[in-house]
């Protein structure tokens, strides 16, 4: 278990842990993690009922990472979200019905049936969807960052990948390019112990976070099952990016608590290891902290749970009501007629309220100061 110990290189300079979060933010973090967990459980049921063609992939146990990291972003920041990161889609504004419909190949899915499962990104919410080849999106993220830098805009490009991806040459290419040009990119590495079935000892000789310094930027390791730890690391990284200080690699230690896909029984995972990580469930831990340290009552937690369940049930009904796409759609859209900019994402963190015209100007100030 030596490799799961937390360590930090020169990027961990933040001592103001969690102090940028309001009570409402904390409820939102929990809500988004639960929305991911419950939506994926519902999707798995649909899969078992034969309503999901193809296969099924989820991020059970990794909810704190995509939620905590995406939560720091402003509306005009951009993301390339991967397949264990449903929470990031929800933070940016995708609704669960469109996620479920995408899994079922329905017209109401984010890709309208053109692509399946987690291979989507809502262009209207500032997201570029993933491809199966990993970590291709790290390269695209670097290009998004280059565009922001060329225009002198205080914006951030963020992406995710697993430790398995760090073995691929394209990971090196992306890190190297981002380092050379000091690009405003945040690379979130989800070290979930296995690349499908291959254990870490056969994936790399040196922990990937240590490689960040070789590319000329900081690498930070955090507890990936602690949503506020992820949020803090991502916030520091995003601030660095926005103010022109360059990229950051954040390694989040976690464990994939389901198989690579629904077809994978995880027979390769030692029982003790699974049980140990089970005791570190990110949602259970956060609820404990909210009640012990932040005065949340059982009733409040229960209400969040109930509203999430109701939302997902309603979403499933809506997704199941969505028609299959018309076959004619299959041969449309190969080429674009015109370039159109991506839309902006939802930015639920209270610090961004100013950027959306609300009372708190912190978000806009953040951009202005960086500029």
């Amino acid at each position: 278990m030596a490799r799961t110990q937390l360590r930090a290189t020169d990027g961990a300079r933040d001592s103001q842990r969690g102090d940028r979060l309001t009570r409402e933010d904390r409820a939102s973090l929990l809500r988004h993690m639960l929305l991911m967990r419950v939506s994926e459980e519902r999707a798995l049921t649909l899969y078992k009922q034969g309503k999901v063609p193809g296969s099924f992939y989820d991020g059970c146990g990794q909810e704190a990472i995509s939620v905590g990291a995406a939560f720091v972003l402003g509306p005009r920041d951009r993301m390339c979200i991967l397949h264990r990161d449903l929470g990031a889609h929800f933070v940016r504004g995708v609704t669960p019905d469109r996620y479920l419909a995408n899994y079922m190949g329905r017209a109401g899915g984010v890709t309208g049936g053109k692509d399946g499962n987690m291979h989507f990104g809502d262009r209207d919410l500032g997201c570029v969807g993933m491809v199966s080849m990993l970590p291709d999106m790290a390269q695209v993220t670097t290009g998004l960052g280059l565009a922001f830098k060329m225009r002198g805009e205080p914006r951030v490009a963020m992406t995710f990948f697993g430790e398995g991806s760090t073995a691929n040459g394209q990971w090196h290419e992306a890190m190297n390019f981002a380092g050379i040009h000091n690009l405003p990119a945040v690379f979130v590495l989800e070290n979930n112990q296995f690349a499908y079935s291959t254990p870490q000892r056969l994936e790399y000789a040196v922990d990937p976070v240590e490689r960040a310094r070789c590319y000329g930027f900081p690498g930070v390791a955090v507890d990936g099952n602690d949503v506020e730890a992820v949020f803090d690391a991502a916030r520091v990284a995003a601030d660095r990016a926005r103010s022109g200080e360059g990229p950051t690699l954040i390694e989040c230690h976690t464990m994939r608590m389901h198989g690579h896909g629904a077809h994978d029984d995880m027979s390769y995972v030692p029982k003790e290891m699974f049980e140990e990580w089970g005791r570190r469930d990110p949602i259970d831990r956060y609820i404990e902290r909210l009640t012990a340290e932040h005065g949340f009552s059982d009733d409040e937690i229960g209400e969040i749970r109930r509203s999430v369940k109701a939302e997902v049930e309603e979403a499933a009904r809506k997704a199941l009501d969505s028609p299959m796409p018309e076959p004619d759609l299959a041969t449309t859209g190969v080429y674009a007629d015109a370039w159109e900019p991506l839309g902006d994402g939802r930015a639920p963190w209270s610090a961004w309220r100013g950027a959306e015209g609300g009372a708190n100007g912190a978000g806009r100030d953040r951009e202005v100061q960086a500029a």
Partner: protein
Amino acid sequence: MTATYLEAISDGLRTEMRRDETVFCLGEDVGPFGGAFKVTDGFVEEFGADRCLDTPLAENSIVGVSVGAAIEGFKPVAEMQFADFISCGFDQMVNVAAKMHYRQGISVPMVMRLPSGGGFSGGPYHSQNPEAWFVQAPGLKIVAPATAEDAKGLLISAIRDPNPVCYMEHKGLYRHVKGDVPEGEHSVPIGEARVARDGDEMTVIAYGSAVLLAERAADELDEDIEILDLRTLAPLDRDAILASARKTGKVLVAHEATQSCGVGAEVSAVISQHAFEDLDAPVRRLTTPDVPIPFSPTLEQAVLPQLDDMKEACRELLAY
């Protein structure tokens, strides 16, 4: 103005970079060095190093970074130092750039310049014509100019197109082809073939270096040969192909790329399916055989289509 094919590419790129500040170029050694073939010579002085970016030796990165910048409103014109090296950037081209709009409705307005072709002992890794690899990747457009005028006009159209475009520039034409090139803005529509030579007895359907070969052969044979320059390989101008096939009834399809499942095979299939009853002879192909491009001049000349091969193929088809 009179310009070489190479100067026309350079002029097209410079014209668009002056007109539109979102256009920038990137690639290996394109900066102060001006590129391996000097297409971007003087660009750093005029546009600055940020708009003529030297990249590390990482072809997937060149493509992937271009995709990201294009999504955010730039129009990157990337240079592969040699078209052969696109194999190292193939994944980003076919999996990320090509499918982006179909899957997500996100437009990727980028150009990938691919200096291709043999004839100068470049050997197996500096001589290839990889266009057919990309014909099988829906979502990409592919252009292959044969004249200086089209080299400029198609590059400008490629830059303005909202899709990823593979721009096949044949190295053998760089300094050997010269012609009148309109000054300033000049575009040639993507998807339209050009009748390079009007004739009634047979048609040579060609693109890139094979057009030049066909023109020389037609002149030397002094026969009534039509030459259709495809100019765009994806999407293919099927109407022009069928019109010329129906008009002459005899078609030779010629290209420097290897034969099996090449662009010529598709052209031949289109004619067989839609103009069979107008044909007076089977469709013939003149291509490089299915071999890697060898190094030694005698071996290379033995496989790349030569002028005599073109003349012989035309004579045989005319006599059929």
